[in-house]
């Protein structure tokens, strides 16, 4: 390879890296720079007293607390809904599934993983419509519907993660466990799941992050700009990503804009933090894996 070709290749790769990194730093740096100064109790609690607001004794009107609570409730509920089905499906794929059925389900998981979040949101919305008609208006777009929708969104990730974590268990270990007199279910429950649990836990953390950032799906299933802290499973709710979006679309002045930056920074820290925890788990339990 001629010297100048080598330089071109290395230069091109280095330049690409630089472009990507600078794009990243510029956009995120902007958020950090403009968001950091806004971080204050007032940003979160508005004019209410922090202690009272935290314990829901006082309503917060112009702070981010309702949105923060909303996001936290949403992601916990969503992942709680997705985990049982996701875990069991992952177990089925790695232990009980065979042949055609397994191939079809595998395709389903890949398809589900690629479906855009807004389309999943549409699905959630249609679910809400059906329930609305079925319960004569009692149920509509709400926290529960949004959580169900998000759980569909993160389900493929949990399934794949569980499947991979279980399939990583080597043949020698499996033979040894079978030779100990374990039935398939015993082996899974007492040995394989405990062995796979760091990986599964890590997948759950990543799912939490995915739910925290999603905006499109919740836009169609019950999130609103002002609803207070989530008061009922079937009520409207606020969430951080939607608050950010709403402020970007129409903000009534520099204070609201500043609030937008603050919210963006908080969401960024939340997602980065969750990702960091998952990376720590990966490092601690699988030191030889990436």
């Amino acid at each position, binding site marked *: 390879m001629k010297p100048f070709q080598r330089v071109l290749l290395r230069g091109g790769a280095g330049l690409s890296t630089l472009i990507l990194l600078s794009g990243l730093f510029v956009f995120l740096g902007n958020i950090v720079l403009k968001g950091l100064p806004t971080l204050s109790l007032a940003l979160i609690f508005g004019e209410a007293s922090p202690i009272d607001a935290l314990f829901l004794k006082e309503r917060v009107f112009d702070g981010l607390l309702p949105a923060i609570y909303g996001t936290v409730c949403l992601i916990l509920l969503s992942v709680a809904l997705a985990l049982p089905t996701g875990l069991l499906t992952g177990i089925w794929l790695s232990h009980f599934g065979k042949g055609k059925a397994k191939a079809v389900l595998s395709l389903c998981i890949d398809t589900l993983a690629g479906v855009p979040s807004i389309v999943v949101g549409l699905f959630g919305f249609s679910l809400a419509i059906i329930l609305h008609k079925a319960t004569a208006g009692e149920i509509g777009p709400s926290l529960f519907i949004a959580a169900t929708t998000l759980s569909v969104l993160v389900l493929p990730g949990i399934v794949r993660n569980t499947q991979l974590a279980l399939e990583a268990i080597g043949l020698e270990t499996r033979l*040894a*466990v079978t*030779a*100990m007199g*374990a*039935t398939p279910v015993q082996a899974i429950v*007492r*040995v394989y799941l405990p062995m796979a649990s760091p990986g599964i836990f890590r997948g759950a953390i990543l799912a939490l992050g995915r739910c925290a950032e999603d905006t499109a799906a919740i836009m169609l299933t019950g999130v609103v700009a002002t609803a207070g802290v989530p008061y009922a499973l079937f009520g409207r709710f606020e969430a951080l990503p939607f608050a950010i979006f709403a402020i970007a679309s129409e903000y009534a002045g520099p204070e609201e804009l500043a609030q937008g930056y603050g919210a963006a920074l908080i969401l960024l820290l939340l997602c980065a933090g969750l990702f960091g925890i998952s990376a720590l788990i990966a490092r601690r339990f699988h030191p030889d894996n990436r």
Partner: protein
Amino acid sequence: MKISISNLSFRYDSKTILNAVSMEVPEGSLTAITGPSGEGKSTLLSVINRLWRPEEGARVTGSAMANFKGITTNLLEPHLDLPSLRRNAAMVFQNPTPLPFSIYKNVSLPLTFAGVKKKDEITLKVKRALNRAGLWDEVKERLSEPATRLSGGQQQRLALARALVTEPEILLLDEPTSSLDAVSRDRIEAQLMELKKSCTLLLVSHSESQVTRLADRVYQLKGGRLERRL
């Protein structure tokens, strides 16, 4: 005879691994199977605890019988209670594969699978198994430590304890000392000699000297055919 195998053929994927082999294993002895590697010694062993690898298309013909507490069991019976069989014919592999749990849990797992619930009963049996494997003194203070921290030789004795905890009548050993140093190997051989008094042992080994040291009866597996040598 503890185990009687007669005219057993094991065919997989158009390859004949075992060709009409016959073997008799007397109770309370150590019977060895030697021969070139990769020729089916492990397969023969795995017929007894029905552990052959779950690939489709293994065809087994002939007969294999084992005697458990006076009752004759047909090892090739399709609806045999396999977990129960494996508790009575326990296996030790070449690689110890300790599970990433505590030493205690590693040894007690087979009892959990067997449905033993009482904690005292489990602890008693674990202690007894570790003693019979020659590991108790070294780990009695550290039962809750991870088994992965033990040395290679200790891990293999742990595997032996794990096999002994269900008090099996038959012990199947597949090259148990091949990956160990001479000192660890000697320790395990000493335990095996002791165990002859309470179990029937079937040992696969490619080491002639080990077979000479330990075996009461020797078979050689070559080209799919089994021949008695001692």
